[in-house]
């Protein structure tokens, strides 16, 4: 028996351990996944899946969709910054808001299309000035427009407001 053969034999045997561990891991995962019934995995309709995915925000999502004109693009504030600069309570509120905006952006697409930008209000005013009426989605904590020339509030709710900015 050559050294090469012995080494390869040993290596082959050594690989049996990670392979067996992998099979055990995969088996445990399949068994663990069984808590999600197959009926839930395959048969739920879109509305039910959406309701489960959005949980307490489901009504809010429906309200935002209803408030926006068809095929519209709305701009929301992009929350950015260093987490260490915020108080824990404020950080929690911002994190919840980021999660909400992600749900709104992703799951409502394309009615409406919601984009995030830093300085959203100024950006909306710039676009309006160039002749493109633009929607602004206001959420608590963001800079709120004042009803004035150019700004019109289309919808007001507890959790959000929808504003339209036009060229004066």
């Amino acid at each position: 028996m050559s050294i090469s053969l012995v080494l390869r034999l040993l290596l082959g045997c050594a690989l049996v351990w990670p392979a067996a561990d992998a099979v055990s891991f995969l088996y445990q995962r399949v068994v663990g996944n069984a808590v999600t019934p197959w009926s839930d995995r395959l048969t739920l309709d879109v509305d039910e899946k959406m309701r489960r995915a959005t949980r307490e925000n489901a009504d809010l999502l429906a309200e935002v969709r209803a408030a926006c004109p068809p095929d519209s693009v709305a701009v929301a504030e992009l929350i950015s910054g260093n987490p260490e600069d915020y108080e824990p309570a404020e950080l929690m509120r911002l994190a919840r808001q980021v999660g909400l905006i992600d749900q709104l952006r992703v799951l409502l697409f394309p009615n409406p299309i919601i984009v995030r930008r830093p300085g959203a209000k100024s950006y909306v005013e710039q676009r309006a000035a160039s002749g493109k009426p633009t929607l602004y989605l206001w959420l608590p904590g963001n800079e709120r427009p004042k009803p004035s020339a150019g700004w019109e509030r289309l919808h007001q709710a507890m959790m959000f407001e929808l504003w339209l900015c036009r060229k004066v």
Partner: protein
Amino acid sequence: MPEGLIGYGLMILCTVIVPGWFGVGLVRAMGLRATSGVRITLAYGYLVGHLGLAAVMWLWLLLGKPFPGWLFPVTAAVAGTLLYLRARTSGQPRVAREHSLWWVLVPLVIVLIPVLDAAARWNVNPLLFGDESLIWASKAKVWFSAQADERGLLLKNFVEHPDYPMWNPLIQNLSFASAGRVLHWENRLPLQAFSVALLMLMSAAMTRRSHPIIAAVVMFAFAGSTFAMWSQVAGSDVLLACATLACVEALLRWRETGEQVWWRLAFCAAAAMLASKNEGTLLVPVVAVAFAAHWWLAGAAPQSLGQVLRRALWLLLPLGTWFAHFVHNSTYELGNTLVKDTSGRGMLTRITEQFSTYAPQVGQFFYEYCIDVTRSRWILPATLLAAIAVLCRERLRVRRSPAFVLLAVTWMTVCGYLLVFVGTPSDLTWHLGTAADRILLHVLPVACVSLAMMIWPKKLEV
């Protein structure tokens, strides 16, 4: 019948079965023999089918969707059938069917069960978080829904990393086009099926070149590696891993059999590599250099200029893919912060400047990855030990061994990736934590084939 089941059934038909069937027709028309085996035909068929449909899909989107999207699956099914029938009647020479025993397929079936289970479980959730949503699905949605004049604005403000390649978003667009609207669940299906294609390809490659027992052991280890985390996600890492193995395997078979179809498939796969992730621009040259060096060292047979030029024409496929991506990014003024960061420093500059501070941390991370059995399953370090074992016997003859080409592809890529981490413009700990496991997956299948070949090789009957 429940609406959810109808939705999944239709989407599996339109975005998995039909592209696969179209691809099977295409690869058969390109010259792939029926005797190449079911696993190879299905895996290459799925890859090439989606690549071909993605090209047409992009044109369709650029032209403003000139015909209804449901015509895609219908036309693809008809085209696939016609191509398949044409290949059957064109009198391709038939050779004896590849000898394979049914039990060789058992490990493949065993590893497919958790993959399909994980996919079904994951699909309860919409594409909402992480790269699969914020990068890939977002880009697909923008391309499907946005007016041409709003596309630039939305790419920059709705999509994370809008400069990333287009194959994944175009595959998702096939599901949107088939359904006639944006989807939030079913668009994962065609991407998840690439995990199945990858496992089929690995199974075929390993059982062709190594003993079925070691092929099974390595297959199990791979299925329980980081692949288990990413097989169900609609990202592009499994796409790139699949395309890379497809390219490498096709080049090996071209050399072994001399059949031109493998050359063609290798370049299709190279195009797929470039179209799936930016890392493809590192992997394609690595594969090219490794194989060129191998053929040169092993003594390539002399070829006429005509032959060389005819073969070189297939280079247009990856070059065209790269050029299309370049034009896309130039048109919408999209750049990559890894290539040039916000302060204007290029990758090489950063690698030089940060080497002494970042290299130890990167090395430490990679060492921990290698020894952690739950993540690497010891596959990467085992390739090195196996190489030492082979060197003990073969010495300089290893230059003729295809296993060493795959080994070279694996380790050149790993070194390249580690250098990219050294030159990261982001926080290193964050970058390593979020990306390293995932991108090492790109070459893990190639490493697995190499490992199986070195430990218990099988003599090829070509």
